[in-house]
């Protein structure tokens, strides 16, 4: 009976993930996964005996409520940190299970040590990721943190050996050490590398589940955990490919952002433009490509962008396309979610390979809050963290409109030569405001 339910549950999960192959089927796919989880949780609760059942239900409800409230309060630009945090909770849960298991028996098994290790790393690593993504910490002393990580690593190893020998205190100490290690380990990693870290931690939380499954001999957990572990690992691979980074490089050569570089160029070197100029260029263009980046998300300008596209298409019959870099935004696929939020048709949205063939024929490129993903230094500057990352080749277009608040560099901390390009018009200001003004201009003109 339980075995049949197990099969149903993991089948539902597998089907739900494969439903993500198209936007049309994805929503129902999520419902399938929820159904699966519902079956599993009810199954689990029914096997409990009376008082504990009640406790579990109450805990579950409180946790669930917090989860839902947290999710409701999350705006789409905040998505990445929310996903990181939730991921951390999943890891924490595994870690706690592993920890609790060691209390029942004189000697912990190797599985349990592994669970505690992986769970705590996932937890604290995700929390560190959360803090960085939410912009709550800025790290400058990466060197120091690196040394601390190294010391912690050695301590954790020793702690692990002691913990394996059984004393409860050592096990708790080991858990704490591991958590610190995960935290210090992830904290110095460059912000630009966060998509890679987040997807690895996503995978790791799956592997935690696998380990718990192995430890309690539950094939459902093994299957689902491995599935997620594998999927997270592959997503990591896709991301490292998209950014042309190696996972080991990401971890061991974190970036120290040089916020000073831009001062080398005085502001006079750039051509400043006004929303009027932008509106003029756009309405007379045949083809406009919009390149949104994280700044667009931060400004919450997606609705304005949708309106801009609509008015250009409907009033001025311009051919409008959106070019999305795989790592635009702060997590894989982030920009697509934001554009979906603003009801922008998926037919207008193109990935890097397709859109790079279109820039040549574009009259205007509207780069809004994007920076690293357009930075030509990725092709030339060998010591840059974005070196050899494929970029959106906006330089090929006739004119480039750059919307950002200052000449500050992007996430990767790299100056962008495009700012000083002949073709570029800088529209300094908030992405949302500027786009609004452009729309006002476009609306008032009678063409």
């Amino acid at each position, binding site marked *: 009976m339980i075995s049949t339910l197990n099969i149903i549950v993991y089948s539902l999960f597998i089907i739900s993930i494969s439903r993500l192959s198209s936007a049309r089927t994805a929503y129902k796919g999520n419902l399938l996964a929820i159904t699966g*989880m519902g079956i599993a949780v009810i199954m689990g609760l029914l096997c409990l005996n009376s008082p504990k059942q009640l406790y579990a239900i109450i805990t579950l409800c409180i946790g669930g409520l917090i989860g839902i409230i947290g999710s409701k309060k999350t705006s789409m630009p905040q998505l990445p940190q929310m996903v990181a945090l939730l991921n951390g909770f999943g890891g924490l849960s595994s870690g706690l*299970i592993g920890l609790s298991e060691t209390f*029942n028996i004189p000697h912990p098994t190797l599985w349990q040590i592994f669970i505690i290790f992986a769970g705590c790393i996932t937890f604290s690593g995700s929390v560190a990721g959360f803090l960085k993504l939410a912009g709550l910490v800025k790290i400058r002393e990466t060197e120091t943190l690196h040394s601390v990580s190294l010391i912690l690593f050695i301590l954790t190893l020793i702690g692990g050996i002691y913990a394996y020998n059984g004393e409860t205190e050592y096990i708790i100490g080991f858990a704490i050490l591991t958590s610190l290690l995960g935290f210090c380990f992830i904290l110095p990693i460059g912000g630009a590398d966060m998509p890679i870290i987040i997807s690895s931690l996503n995978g790791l939380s799956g592997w935690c589940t696998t380990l718990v499954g*192995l430890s309690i001999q*539950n094939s459902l957990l093994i299957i689902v955990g491995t599935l997620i572990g594998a999927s997270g690992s592959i997503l990591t691979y896709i991301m490292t490919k998209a950014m042309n980074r190696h996972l080991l490089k990401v971890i061991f050569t974190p970036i120290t952002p040089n916020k000073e570089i831009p001062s080398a160029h005085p502001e006079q070197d750039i051509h400043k433009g006004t929303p009027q100029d932008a509106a003029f260029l756009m309405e007379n263009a045949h083809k406009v490509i919009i390149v949104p980046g994280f700044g667009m998300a931060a400004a919450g300008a997606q609705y304005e962008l949708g309106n801009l596209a609509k008015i250009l298409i409907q009033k001025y019959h311009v051919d409008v396309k959106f070019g999305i870099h795989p790592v635009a935004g702060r997590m894989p696929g982030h920009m697509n979610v934001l554009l979906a939020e603003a009801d922008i048709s998926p037919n207008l949205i193109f990935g890097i390979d397709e859109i790079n063939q279109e820039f040549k024929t574009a009259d205007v490129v509207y780069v809004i809050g994007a920076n690293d993903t357009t930075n030509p230094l990725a092709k030339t500057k060998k010591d840059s963290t974005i070196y050899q990352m494929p970029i959106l080749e906006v330089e090929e277009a006739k004119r480039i409109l750059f919307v950002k608040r200052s000449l500050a560099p992007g996430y990767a901390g790299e100056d962008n030569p495009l700012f000083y390009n002949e073709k570029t018009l800088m529209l300094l200001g908030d992405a949302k405001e500027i786009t609004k003004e452009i729309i006002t201009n476009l609306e008032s003109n009678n063409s």
Partner: protein
Amino acid sequence: MDFYIIDILILSCFIGYFAIWNVTPLLHSPLMSVTNAISGIVILGALQNLNQSESLITTTLLLLAIFFAAINIFGGFHISARMLHMFKRKDKTND
């Protein structure tokens, strides 16, 4: 029996591999949050162990585990549903 578990591990890896390459890059964010929510299945481990738990400390730890897993599950599915709802709507208006 251990052999079978290894087979299950390997086969699950292949399924993860195939399933993920099938996912359109458009939906990589929802993918992460769905898999994230699904990994909350670890709650079953906590529930299973809770039954055998006798001391206060293990019960507390397991209830904490349930608590965090619940946040993960409900939060994860809710936020996925929010995202996917937008894609669904978007899809409707254009087809």
